[in-house]
């Protein structure tokens, strides 16, 4: 399919012209299907133009276990960096959203499934620490396949590291809003992603702990339609709302406004 000209919608299988899709924030104009965004597109969606200044841009993963499977982990990393133009699977930085100073984070699923290894965990923890010291609200768009198994236990421990960082933020009463996007599973869901004061999700996103295939293997039956979608989570009380991409900026702005006012007059 010639890239950049037209594409087939994953939701309704209809043909959508690229320009039209881009104008519509990559939401299908026919069926409302939300296509995945890159980390940079996520930041552009929310940050005031030109306001994003990346933190820890130089911080990258290593290969402490010299992990080799079908491919060597170092080659996975090199290939992902090359293809995505990113040092790692997460971008964090200072930014402003509708004038509010924030720390803004976004994950990029193209980068080894936005899995969380040492570098992702470290960048996330530092982002929360910056937010504490500068009393900036945190807004985080998550996407992840889970922990980065190529870094073994070092990767698992990032769940605890990032959760502890959120706890410190919460203790200082600095607001945190997370946006769960397709897909967010495993160790990222089960750590900083869901520990926000307000958890939003994009329509139709797959969000859960265990992946659907793992569950199907475990229970030896097919999963019901709609299982582990944003809408399923809303019904089960796990997210505050499912927000279409076109309304996300307005909603996040309003939420920051409520949570940073300290009970005073509306701005």
């Amino acid at each position: 399919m010639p890239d950049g000209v037209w594409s087939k919608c994953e939701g309704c299988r209809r043909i959508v012209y690229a320009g039209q899709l881009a104008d519509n924030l990559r939401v299908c104009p026919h069926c409302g299907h939300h296509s995945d965004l890159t980390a940079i597109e996520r930041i552009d969606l929310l940050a005031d133009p030109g306001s994003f200044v990346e933190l820890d841009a130089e911080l990258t993963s290593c290969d402490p276990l010299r992990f080799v499977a079908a491919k060597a982990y170092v080659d996975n990393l090199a290939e992902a960096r090359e293809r995505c133009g990113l040092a790692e699977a997460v971008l964090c930085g200072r930014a402003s959203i509708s004038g509010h100073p924030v720390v803004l984070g976004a994950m990029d699923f193209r980068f080894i499934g936005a899995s969380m290894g040492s570098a992702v965990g470290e960048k996330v923890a530092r982002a929360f620490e910056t937010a504490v010291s500068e009393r900036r609200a945190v807004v985080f768009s998550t996407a992840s396949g889970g922990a980065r198994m190529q870094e073994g236990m070092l990767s698992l421990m990032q769940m605890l590291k990032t959760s502890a960082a959120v706890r410190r933020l919460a203790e200082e009463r600095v607001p945190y809003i997370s946006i769960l996007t397709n897909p967010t599973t495993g160790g990222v869901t089960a750590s900083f992603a869901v520990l926000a004061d307000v958890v939003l999700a994009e329509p139709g996103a797959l969000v859960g702990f265990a992946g659907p295939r793992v569950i199907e293997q475990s229970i030896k039956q097919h999963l019901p339609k709609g299982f582990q979608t944003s809408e399923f989570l809303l019904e089960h009380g796990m997210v505050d709302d499912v927000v279409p991409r076109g309304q996300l900026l307005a909603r996040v702005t309003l939420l920051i406004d409520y949570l940073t006012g300290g009970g005073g007059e509306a701005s």
Partner: protein
Amino acid sequence: MRYRHVLDFERPLVELETKLEELRSLDLAEHPELLEEIDRLTQEIEALHESTYSDLSAWEKVQLSRHPDRPKTQDYLETIFTDVVELHGDRLYGDDGAVVTALATIAGRRVAVAGHRKGKNIRENIARNFGMVHPEGFRKAMRLMRLADKFGLPLVTLIDTPGAYPGIEAEERGQAWAIAESLALLGGLGVPVVAVGIGEGGSGGALAIGFGDRLIMLENAYYSVITPEACASILHKDSEKASEVASCLALTADDLLRLGIADEIVPEPLGGAHRDPAPVFQEVRERIVSVLDGLAGVPAQELVEKRYERLRSIGVIDESAG
């Protein structure tokens, strides 16, 4: 000696041992020529015993950690603790049999204990879901953590789970949410926390109660970001390659010590803790008490700060350039 459960890599040894027993059961007075054969076999067994168990691969350790006869959380509760008062339920939904929470005394020191709980037989394992935790199990542990924090009781956790249960109801009731909240809570407890890896350390379900100011690992316990089988199934589309993958995942006690995650290793008798549990219990008790004594009197805020610094130091990154 008869083994109730024989692991794959133990099979050659067990075959020889069975043969030796058969020989011994014969009337040696009638067959004096067998004495020499018995001597030879005994030596062979000794050597094989040594070679089978002395340099176990990661996969062999994983198998040992899952051995049905291996001492379980319940055994530790019954041997190294006294005055155990079990507390049940999460006050929200249920009482997960895969997690035990209790107040207990260890060498005269009052503590709170949370552990994954596997069974020793099918009946127990069904009641305890083979140690695989549902959200209510993590929330049950959180209730104990808050109680420990409130009343200044140090927390001892015993890690032994294949992982959080991957099922429909577990997801419906917020498996990820329960684990995440447990992690955040663990990070902020103002009491000493000692975690002991006694068997399986399966991913997030283990981590939810499986870290603290000190992590003690049994020699053959493992702790892994993913089970070797699941990892092999993802990387090679073949769960049979688990043994190969196990050695890549850095999941043994030695690996964890090297990576700065575990602090100390409790040696096991050759063949595993179940071959002779008494000295293992004894050693685990002493190690826990020693950690508790070392942390006694440390102010809550300092404990939390140190634990955070410890966590922050885990990971290998490069900041030099892209």
